[in-house]
């Protein structure tokens, strides 16, 4: 009797360990699938102005005193990327290096403007801590409200006429690049792109 119990216990432990490892392997695979299959595009939210809408003109002053015009025709024919962020948003912070490198690679046609709101002193500490002095950084609650920005970090790409070319919630480099891609292809968002692809297949 006792021998049977010992044997069954040994066997059960073996099965338990193997099962645990199998479960771990399975959830790992799910994790990898998520990484590959997740919508690799900026998710645009339903509220607020749509792609193709014109943004009202704003005359603003950057944190370093520079004059910044948002909306309306751009005299140099350049596009503007509005990056909405907040010093209290951790994802925003992780995207700053990505934003800096995109600004360098796309500088032939694109101006990058960081838009935040809240306490001015806190913003200045944030700019100094993250070495953002070379970027245009404006603090304006009105701009965010007029574009109905609900979640951060959010980007809005304005073309040379102040019309929204692409927009969306960005969490990674791929998301940010998808916004440039969307503007280039004239697709409003990843959702629209997926729908069009779906139509083609159907």
């Amino acid at each position: 009797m006792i021998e049977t119990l010992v044997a069954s216990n040994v066997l059960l432990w073996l099965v338990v360990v193997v099962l645990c490892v199998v479960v771990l392997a399975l959830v790992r695979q799910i994790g990898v699938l998520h990484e590959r299959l997740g919508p690799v595009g900026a998710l645009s939210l339903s509220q607020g102005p749509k792609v193709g809408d014109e943004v009202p003109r704003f005359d603003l002053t950057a944190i370093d005193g520079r004059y910044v015009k948002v909306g309306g025709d751009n005299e140099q024919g350049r596009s503007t990327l509005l990056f909405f962020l907040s010093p209290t948003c951790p994802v925003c912070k992780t995207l700053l290096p990505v934003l800096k490198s995109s600004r360098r690679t796309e500088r032939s046609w694109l101006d990058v403007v960081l838009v935040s709101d809240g306490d001015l002193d806190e913003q200045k500490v944030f700019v100094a801590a993250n070495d953002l002095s070379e970027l245009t950084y404006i603090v304006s609650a009105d701009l965010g409200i007029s574009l109905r920005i609900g979640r951060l970090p959010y980007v809005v790409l304005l073309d040379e006429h102040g019309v929204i070319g692409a927009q969306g919630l960005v969490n990674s480099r791929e998301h940010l690049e998808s916004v440039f891609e969307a503007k280039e292809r004239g697709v409003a968002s990843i959702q629209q792109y997926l729908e069009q692809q779906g139509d083609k297949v159907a």
Partner: protein
Amino acid sequence: MFHDPATLLVLRFALALLFATACVHKLRQFGEFRDTVADYELVPPALVTPAALLVIAIELFVVAALLVSAWVPAGSIVAAAVLSVYAAAIGINLARGRDSIDCGCSGAALRQPISGWLVLRNLLLAGAAWWAGAAVAERALGPWDYALTLVALCALLSLYLATEQLLANAPRSRRLSSAYD
């Protein structure tokens, strides 16, 4: 109440392993860990670095204490206290509505936002840490006990890693199912 030494041995080693991996993550990516501490917004900005160092020191002490038989009672109490503090820190930020900050549970490689599940998990671990310090029944340990400890550790480790991965997957699964609505 006295507990079987083999059970407590498993608990001790499992917790020591948990704290050791946590320490390694925090030391290897100290910058990220400091940012995580700052994101919790529980200590003033000037004290973030000392607080981060203190956390690492306490965790190292727990690892050492759990491995040395004579120190186990102290190690178990400190471990339970630290895990309860983590649970409280997550709970406070959830109550503040700051539910998108990184938990910092398993290093920067596996980011996972804080959630109620993590509070529960930490409280369960705190309970286990408390249990590890319970009075031991007198019994000589044989080779089978050590074999049992080893396989039980393997099982617990993979289950813990699986839970971590599931918690990290959860927000992505939610996003995936809502993105096409």
